[in-house]
């Protein structure tokens, strides 16, 4: 069975509709799944395929396509194979089903994705804040969130040539920063 995982996996997922299989390597299999088919597929992989370990759920933002890509990585200890199941869901309204009933650790990954991308998972045990407990801005991992602007609005930068540097330079030290890499705080920007 382990000799040709691609074939075996192809056979297994043939039972679910809407799945495309691309095996790049015996240890790494990629499945492109229709969003409706994913719960059934995961259940099959877990129940029949020994993929008992959900390594991670990751999320990719595709603003041009108006889509989020969710990737479910499941690992089998017996086959030593990682299967990544990719789905695409519409960016608006950004809702999907929780797979918490199949894999318990999904609760944390889904909570994290909800916080970072604003995707809502129906049926997930908790959609509260997770790591960014003191953050009230937009979900920061969305592509349209401009981190650099936010930083410029909220922080000031150190001066590039403060007076105390003269002391250090007179003793032979100092710093050199290329002009295109210099950043200036609000105040300096408004003044210039």
């Amino acid at each position, binding site marked *: 069975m382990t000799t040709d995982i691609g074939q075996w996996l192809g056979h297994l997922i043939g039972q679910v509709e809407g799945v495309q299989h691309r095996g790049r390597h015996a240890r790494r299999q990629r499945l492109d799944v229709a969003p409706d088919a994913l719960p059934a597929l995961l259940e099959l992989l877990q129940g029949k395929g020994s993929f008992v370990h959900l390594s991670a759920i990751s999320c990719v933002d595709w603003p041009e396509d108006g889509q989020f890509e969710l990737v479910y990585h499941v690992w089998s200890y017996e086959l030593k194979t990682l299967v990544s199941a990719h789905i695409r869901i519409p960016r608006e309204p950004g809702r999907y089903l929780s797979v918490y009933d199949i894999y318990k650790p999904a609760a944390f990954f889904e909570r994290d994705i909800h916080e970072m991308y604003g995707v809502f998972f129906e049926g997930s045990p908790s959609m509260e804040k997770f790591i*960014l*407990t*003191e953050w009230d*801005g937009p979900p*920061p991992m969305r592509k349209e*969130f401009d*981190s*650099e602007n*936010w*930083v410029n609005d*909220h*922080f*000031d*930068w*150190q*001066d590039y040539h*403060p*007076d*105390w540097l003269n002391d250090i330079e007179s003793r032979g030290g100092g710093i050199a920063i290329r002009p295109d890499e210099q*950043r200036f*705080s*609000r*105040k300096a920007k408004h003044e210039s």
Partner: protein
Amino acid sequence: MTSLSDIPVIQTPPEAPARGGNPLANVFDDFIRYCRSRSLFMLHYCTGCGAIELPPAMTSRFDMERIGIQPMVTPRQADILLVTGYVSVKTLKRIILTYEQMASPKYVIGICSCTVNGGMYWQSYATAKKLNDYLPVDLYIAGCMPRPEAVIEGLKALRDNIEAGTSDNWKDYYQRYDHYLGNQQRLFGADWQTPTEVIAEAKHYGLFGPDTLGEHTRRLEDHRKPLEPLRMTLNAGRLEHME
């Protein structure tokens, strides 16, 4: 916004030779400063990756104890607050709480480029950029990360500054509390407050100045919740079952 040099350093009483230039006039002050600079307890708040260089700096290879510096476990007993590496916004709140609990005189050292200007996290929404906007930093040790030699060199510089009486930025925190609080409020929101009575402490130390109070400290009064004593009971966790 502020360069370190703009922060007025308050000199310890000027060394003007009193009473006809008695060379022994300041001998006691000098002696105290000498002793203080030779026995420093350091609270290392290991916020970022720079903390990795501290174990070698502390232990036998570089051995900072030979210059009289030892790690300390609580802020109340520490003299130096060592901030080692990037400071996330959440951590910054804890650092300010820790700093305010320390007894004066106290010194802050920012280790790593990240505390100077955000370092390689300059674009990140989650990390604070300039530590000296929020706390009075005495010394920065730049580098990503600075080697133990640099750390020891920086600590020696601090020791010399303390002995010379030039390292008293902690007074600046009391004298310009409004400025620091303003930066803290800008980041944490208008209702930010700490349980420490900084203003009362400023009066106690005789450091209450014209810039201690200002618009930001006034805002503090709007939000201040009176501290309530905790009820002292045994098995407090099961209080609701008793009632």
